[in-house]
């Protein structure tokens, strides 16, 4: 019996156009090619059959039905890509039964499962054929096959989009066969804006991250899972706090306002900014926003596509300037029900401590700076022990766990997926944790052949326990500065304070108390839901309607208990902060898809979309509560009441269209156009128009290259387009009012005064991008090389105008004047070093981005401020956010050096830092500040190795960032030789008359030379190489699991952030941007470090 497999690639015998009847086998081949699906049929069965030719302007199911009508055959859809032709049910035999029936010459009977070598998923409908006899069978719905062949027979095993494989039937019994995905993944479908496309048809720069990559990293937020996965996408964790924010830069920083990409979750756009969506704890002393995306459970994600160039992003128009991240969540599949559990537990720890002085060293230090003589504890230094190790007190081994349950399944008509997840992660700083409970339900139903409907509901609730960090009064910062003399807790269980009467003056509280006593809880409840209906008007015209909503409630409650400890005290204070936001979206899409005259593939998408967001917030606080146990607002002192509130509203009305045209699979053209009308734009610029055009040439499809066996793919892409950034504030065009206090008749009144000068012309910031790319596949795509170069120019950046005071102190209007440029190179190299049973793949990517601020208009320069200090400056001609300060030129060793040097301060003495006189005027002042470092890396590189050996899978992920600098604010204090505070051990090697070649200046509690000023002294090399992830998994043999009706058990262990090689003296050189502020990158302000974590887990599928 012959079983043929028609693949999309197979050339076919062309049929004569004028005859109506054609050979069924030929027709099936043709259908297979046209629709890009595999059709499995028994050559014997169809051999003689002649059928009527069909037009291809109808769904494949319809064609097959018509074709087979008179043949006594029927078809079955195994999956989206595979159809099998079989005898009609009443024909009483199925193909597999028939096989065994026909085989009379019994030799040995083999059976087993044909599976994907990586995922261990059964390959339904896979072919297994004895090479000699051409007899064989196909795997059933569970991937099982059963075959009787001669002993030692060579079997050809094949499956669509998998590498074919020869196996030898050595002995009777079970023989499981693993197939690897074909390197010819060109026909992989990727999600693009408002649709999906075959990867081979792409003309733009799109990175796709699949389930497997996402599953490798047990992470709290989805941004972590993306880190290092894609060239040109630079992701840093702004804070290592559980649930902490991330900054994502796709092809550099393109705005001074917000440079974060647009996230689209199942078609619902979400901006990860904090306006109206996320509570900040900045004002409480902590410095970082938490991420709004932590409400999304990464386990629910099926794939993530990152759209990088304008050709790919332009369909998102005014929101696409910073790139677009498309997130597709898991959907139901038809077929048998699958229940799966995925659980892991983990432990995180600080992987590096900063050595600070112990008690004795601290005492000696104090005495050196002329303090501590009255401290009775310091009378006999020899008696001093090490004192309190504050880092040991505030850092901990933190536990985390994750449990995920999923149930998927469905019939041919209805598919569903239900998942529920519980995630809990403690932070490595005591008192911090994050938890999330989430569920997702997805249902798709085919009402009939033409109408499909579906719904997707994602609900989650997160709770963050925040400890104040990322600021000079944060827990980490103060833990490093608190003297070892202060006990964490006293013997009677109270929080420790400097002992009475010894004059130790501290301006901050016990760090442990700060971490655990302050209650700061941020709860978010999110409901993300959408429904759709899809209607096939004709076989080539489809209409789709979607309605979606995003509801987010944030409750942020804070309580500061009263205390009186040593030199510091505080009144109690309670604050309640509520923030509600509501968003809706209505979308209508028409898709036209047709092949005209065989070679012309045309897809046209036309759409209309309306969306609106509103938010309101309310914040109330009172002080002086009667007791630290009573945290209710109404109990506070009414006179201290502060109530604030606000609301905002925005809307976007959009029309868009896309044309995809392909000629003979060789020449591809994509053109998009979107018109966005935004409430944020001024009256004179309500609508923005965003066009793009891209062209790709699949050179490898040309006749002159078709015969080059080694070359499996060669494609050149070029694209150009304009997109916008509408994140310019909700009302920057409007003239706003400011509430002011005026007293009339002894009454305090609220009056209104104009706040700003309006600019009715305010519009989006635009980004114009040119992209040139090449995709190269060699040796059956075992080597895949992708290169892209781009030039992205951000124009019309919104900057404040500078006004004279005669304009009355009104806030200046924002005007679209700035310009910034990003040029870059992205290389990706994917290789399959070994295939087969031992499988080894390497993915490497390399990115270079060069940022330059071209024009800032009259603004001249922008300043990034932390701790009220200007740290960065952004000027024309340099990259955004350069560190700005004095240059430290060593240390003065004697008075004559000071006398000869330019004047610094009246208190300058030997042992002080010598600063450079940039303008040569003999005085060191503000005019001598200059650019002292850059947060931007020269390049980044990521290497991921995935290895499968038998049932083991191993993954090793290394991330490297080179050439960036970190501004170490923390060092300003722990190496600042301040009074009373503890110091880094580096300060032990400070300048003294006996230690002239020191790098740390003399100790002096008052710092009369201002050695702590912002200078190159605190700029450090921020390059690092990090073992980001290493994991090992083991899949239990089916033989064992099948007995218990378990289809898969995989056990794994994984470690994240295992080692970091860096010269940086602080905890962690990966700093990120401060609150996603594009002007402040790489400034370590006592950042919550990302811990090293080890997790162990199991996946179980039933």
């Amino acid at each position: 019996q012959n079983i043929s497999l028609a693949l999309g690639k197979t050339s076919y015998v062309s049929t004569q156009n004028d005859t109506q009847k054609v050979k069924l086998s030929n027709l099936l081949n043709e259908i297979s090619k046209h629709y890009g699906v595999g059709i499995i049929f028994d050559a014997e069965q169809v051999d003689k059959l002649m059928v009527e030719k069909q037009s291809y302007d109808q769904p494949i199911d319809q064609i097959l039905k018509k074709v087979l009508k008179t043949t006594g055959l029927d078809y079955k859809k195994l999956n989206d890509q595979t159809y099998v032709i079989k005898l009609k049910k009443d024909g009483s035999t199925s193909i597999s039964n028939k096989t065994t029936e026909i085989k009379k010459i019994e030799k040995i009977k083999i059976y087993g499962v044909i599976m994907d070598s990586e995922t261990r998923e059964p390959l339904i409908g896979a072919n297994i054929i004895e090479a000699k006899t051409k007899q064989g069978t196909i795997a059933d719905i569970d991937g099982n096959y059963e075959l009787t062949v001669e002993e030692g027979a060579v079997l050809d095993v094949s499956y669509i989009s998998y590498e074919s494989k020869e196996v030898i039937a050595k002995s009777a019994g079970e023989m499981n066969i693993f197939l690897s995905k074909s390197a010819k993944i060109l026909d992989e479908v990727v999600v693009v804006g408002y649709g999906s496309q075959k990867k081979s048809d792409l003309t733009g720069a799109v990175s796709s991250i699949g389930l497997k990559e996402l599953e490798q990293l047990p992470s709290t937020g989805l941004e972590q899972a993306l880190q290092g996965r894609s060239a040109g996408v630079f992701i840093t964790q702004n804070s290592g706090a559980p649930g902490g924010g991330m900054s994502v830069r796709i092809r550099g920083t393109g705005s001074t306002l917000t440079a974060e990409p647009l996230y689209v979750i199942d078609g619902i756009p979400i901006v990860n900014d904090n306006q109206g969506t996320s509570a900040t704890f900045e004002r409480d002393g902590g410095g970082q926003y938490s991420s709004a995306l932590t409400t999304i459970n990464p386990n629910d994600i099926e794939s993530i596509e990152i759209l990088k160039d304008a050709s790919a992003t332009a369909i998102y128009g005014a929101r696409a300037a910073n790139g677009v991240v498309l997130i597709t969540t898991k959907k139901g599949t038809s077929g048998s029900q699958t229940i799966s559990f995925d659980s892991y537990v983990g432990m995180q720890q600080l992987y590096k401590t900063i050595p600070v002085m112990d008690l004795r060293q601290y005492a000696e230090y104090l005495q050196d700076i002329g303090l501590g003589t009255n401290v009775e504890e310091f009378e006999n230094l020899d008696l001093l022990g090490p004192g309190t190790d504050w880092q040991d007190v505030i850092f901990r081994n933190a536990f985390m766990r994750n449990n995920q349950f999923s149930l998927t399944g469905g019939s041919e008509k209805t598919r569903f997926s239900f998942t529920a997840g519980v995630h809990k992660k403690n932070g490595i700083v005591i008192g911090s944790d994050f938890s999330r409970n989430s569920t997702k339900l997805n249902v798709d139903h085919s009402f009939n052949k033409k109408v499909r409907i579906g719904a997707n509901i994602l609900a989650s609730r997160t709770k963050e326990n925040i400890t104040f960090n990322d600021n000079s009064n944060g827990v980490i910062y103060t833990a490093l500065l608190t003297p070892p003399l202060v006990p964490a807790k006293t013997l009677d269980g109270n929080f420790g304070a400097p002992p009475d009467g010894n004059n130790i003056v501290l301006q901050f509280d016990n760090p442990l108390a700060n971490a655990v006593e302050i209650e700061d809880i941020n709860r978010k409840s999110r409901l993300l839901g959408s429904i759709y209906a899809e209607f096939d008007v004709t076989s080539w015209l489809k209409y789709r309607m979607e309605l979606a909503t995003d509801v987010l409630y944030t409750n942020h409650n804070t309580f500061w208990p009263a205390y009186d400890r040593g030199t510091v005290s505080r009144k109690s204070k309670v604050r309640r902060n509520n923030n509600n936001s509501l968003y809706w979206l209505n979308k209508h899409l028409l898709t036209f898809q047709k092949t005209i005259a065989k070679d012309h593939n045309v897809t046209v998408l036309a759409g209309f979309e309306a969306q609106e967001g509103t938010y309101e917030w309310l914040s109330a606080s009172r002080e002086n509560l009667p007791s630290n146990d009573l945290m209710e607002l109404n109990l506070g002192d009414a006179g201290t009441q502060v109530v604030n509130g606000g609301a905002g509203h925005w809307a976007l009305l959009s029309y868009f269209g896309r044309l995809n045209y392909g000629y003979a699979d060789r020449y591809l053209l994509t053109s998009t156009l979107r018109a966005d009308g935004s409430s944020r734009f001024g009256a004179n610029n309500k609508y923005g128009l965003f066009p793009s055009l891209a062209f790709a040439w699949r050179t490898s499809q040309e006749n002159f290259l078709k015969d080059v066996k080694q070359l499996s793919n060669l494609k050149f892409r070029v694209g150009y387009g304009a997109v916008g950034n509408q994140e310019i504030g909700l009302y920057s065009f409007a003239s706003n009012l400011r509430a002011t206090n005026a007293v009339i008749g002894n009454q305090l009144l609220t009056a209104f005064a104009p706040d700003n000068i309006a600019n009715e012309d305010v519009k989006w910031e635009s980004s114009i991008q040119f992209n040139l790319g090449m995709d190269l596949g060699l040796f059956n795509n075992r080597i895949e090389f992708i290169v892209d170069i781009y030039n992205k120019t951000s124009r019309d950046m919104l900057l404040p105008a500078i006004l004279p005071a005669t304009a009355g102190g009104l806030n200046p209007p924002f005007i679209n004047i700035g310009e910034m440029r990003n040029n870059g190179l992205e290389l990706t190299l994917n290789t399959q070093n070994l295939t087969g049973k031992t499988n080894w793949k390497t993915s490497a990517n390399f990115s270079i981005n060069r940022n330059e601020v071209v024009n800032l208009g009259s603004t001249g320069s922008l300043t990034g401020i932390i701790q009220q200090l200007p740290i960065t400056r952004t000027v024309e001609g340099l990259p955004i956010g350069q560190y700005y300060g004095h240059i430290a030129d060593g240390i003065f060793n004697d008075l004559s050096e000071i006398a000869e040097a330019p004047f610094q301060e009246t208190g300058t003495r030997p042992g002080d830092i010598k600063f450079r006189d940039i303008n040569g005027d003999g005085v060191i002042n503000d005019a001598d500040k200059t650019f002292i470092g850059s947060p931007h890396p020269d390049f980044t590189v990521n290497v991921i190795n995935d290895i499968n050996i038998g049932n083991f899978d191993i993954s090793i992920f290394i991330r490297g960032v080179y050439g960036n600098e970190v501004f170490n604010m923390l060092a300003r204090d722990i190496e600042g030789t301040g009074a009373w505070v503890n110091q880094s051990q580096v300060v032990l090697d400070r300048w003294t008359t006996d230690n002239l070649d020191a790098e740390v200046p003399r100790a002096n509690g008052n710092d009369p030379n201002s050695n702590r000023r912002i200078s190159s002294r605190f700029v450090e090399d921020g390059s690092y190489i990090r073992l980001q992830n290493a994991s090992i998994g083991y899949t239990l043999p089916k033989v064992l699991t099948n007995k218990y009706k378990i289809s898969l058990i995989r056990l794994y262990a994984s470690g994240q952030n295992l080692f970091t090689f860096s010269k940086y003296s602080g905890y962690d050189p990966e700093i990120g941007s401060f609150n996603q502020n594009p002007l402040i990158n790489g400034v370590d302000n006592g950042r919550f470090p990302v811990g090293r974590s080890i997790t162990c887990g199991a996946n179980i599928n039933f």
Partner: protein
Amino acid sequence: NFYKTASDANLATISMYSVTGSINWFGLSWMITEIPTDNTTVGGNDPDFSPIDNFTISADNSPNTQYWQQHYKLITLANQVLTYVPGIEMDEEIKSGYLAEAYFMRAFSYFDLVRIYGDVPIVTTLPELGQDLLIPRSPVSEVYQLIIDDLLFATENLPDTRPSSDMGRATSYAAKAILSKVYLTTGEYDKSITLCTDIINSNQYKLVPVADNWLRDVSDNNAEAIWQVQYVGCGPLGTGNALQAFFAPWGQGITQNSDGWGSQIPTAPTIDNPGTTIKDAFKSEDLRKYHSIMTAGDEYPMINPSEGGYKYPSQGASRAQVNIKKYVIGGGNDVCFMSTPQNYHVIRYADVLLMLAEASCKRNGGLSVTPEVVSAFNQVRERAGLSKEEVITTEMVYKERRLEFAFENHRWFDLLREGNIQKTMQLHGKQMQDHNILFPIPTQELAINPNLTQNEGY
């Protein structure tokens, strides 16, 4: 959607008072209009105030920059009212009242600017994008013309009195008093006399005992007050009187709010200024002395009475061994950091009486015997417990003004009107240069606006 109703018009109008009430206005004015005079000096060396005190001020001086900014801020809020309120449908009489308040405030601000800086940019519209915002300076005469036009409208359209709920808002008499001083400054003495006479004949105002102007509670909106900035204690920043914080002697615990910095103190006697300090100027029997300056042994039972009052230390509490008493009222429930409830006298009836005397003397070649004028002058003297005069001279009026309005931000302008300011300051021991008659245009304004020129000498 604002500027649609009468209530909107009212709220917009009231916003102007948030500027005059702010710390940056009267909490700051003394740095410009008292510190450089013979009345006061800085409490201690200060990079901002000392150069003003000793006439080494440079164009980047911060209080000077603030002074410029705050005055244009008030002008902008006035222009806001003048731009939007005319289009609001409402009672026409009330509307013209609001407009008159805006004209009043705008003139009030320009009057300070023109006297401090000379030629200044005239802004009479609300700044808009596209409109030329880089305005050059206009000559002094044009500025005065604007001031006079604005105030004439104000005198005609403002109400004569305010109900207690509107106390603090401009009245026609406040406008007349300011306008009278404008005329006095421009030398139109007849017009000044007419306006003063008008106010006097209204019988709406009278002098109150000295103490009643300076004791808490009674001083607010008393019979002498023509225009007071209204304050409440312990409200949001800029709604209380901040002067106590600057004037109260340092380290005496008077305010009980860890403020009281003695930033401005009465001039200290030095070898260079024998007999010219304000302390020297006060006769011992002058009732105003006790309420103006604190000298050794003075007791103030009204300051923190629960603690038995305050006694000024015999060795003094400043380097001058005297401190300012005006606006120092001590602590209490209604007193917070930089915030007391005591209203601030912008213009009071005594000023009108002395303006009448000054204008009359100047018109008559330096002296006056006109009974009404002499009587007006003597009212002020008698209230201070001093003897009557028969003949008054310009010089006497200025001497009287110095004592009557000590530390009330009049001295610099009085010295300017008197003429000879350089000589006066020289006798007082301070080297004032020609160019110090005017203050410098702030550096940052010059940097932003290339159409501005700097005053000579800076």
